[in-house]
């Protein structure tokens, strides 16, 4: 699934780095705990999180994530958007709860990381 397809499914808005149409997302992981994210390989994976601060972007950068869905209608600030652009991370801003986002993507065929 492409990043834009994910954004459409969750009725989200793309901010940060532009969506790479060639990047294929196959799996998802949902967490607000950043060290939990750093435990796994995030290849072809979208992170779904309610944590919306600079550390979300720093962690995503270290984890080699390319796309992060930020739920619960949280608003990334300028600083965070700049970090996202610098490290090539596309943010999908979304009004839905983490549970709803996860359910929609699961239903659409995105696999759990484990």
């Amino acid at each position: 699934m492409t990043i834009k397809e994910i954004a459409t499914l969750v009725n989200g808005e793309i901010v940060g780095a532009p969506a790479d149409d060639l990047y294929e997302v196959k799996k998802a992981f949902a967490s607000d705990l950043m060290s939990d994210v750093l435990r796994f390989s995030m290849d072809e994976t979208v992170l779904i999180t309610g944590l919306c601060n600079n550390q979300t972007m720093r962690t995503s950068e270290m984890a080699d994530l390319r796309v992060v869905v930020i739920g619960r209608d949280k608003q990334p600030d300028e600083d965070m958007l700049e970090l996202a652009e610098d490290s090539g991370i596309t943010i999908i801003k979304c009004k839905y709860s983490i549970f709803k986002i996860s359910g929609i993507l699961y239903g659409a065929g995105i696999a759990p990381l484990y």
Partner: protein
Amino acid sequence: MHYTFNIERGNFTDAGQASSSVKRTLKQLGVDPANIKRTVVALFEAEINAVAHAYGGTIDVDIDGEKIVMVVADEGPGIPNLDLAMQEGWSTASAKVREMGYGAGMGLPNIKKNTDDLKIDTQVGVGTTVTMTVYLT
């Protein structure tokens, strides 16, 4: 090559900057992605610990063709029980630190998993020095 960075206590706006800078350098040097990832995950966890649990400190990184040696030294409370601290899930993170997304108790286990050599010198009331080595071959 040698790089030095400062870490500021409680500064979660900039925390991770040093690890980000090291990541860029390793990319430029053409280090393979798997080794970059384990290096920066370990460094990042140690950097965040110095920001979150201690009063800041310094990071020294040495890179040669064979290995990357990273030393994260802080002034801080030290770790009273290192065996406990190394366990997955054990954390004393404050409410503020948890709000920033940390406190899973996975940082030190992540460091252990991603490095080839790990040494932690810690003294209660003085500080902690974490020395991590990643071999590139």
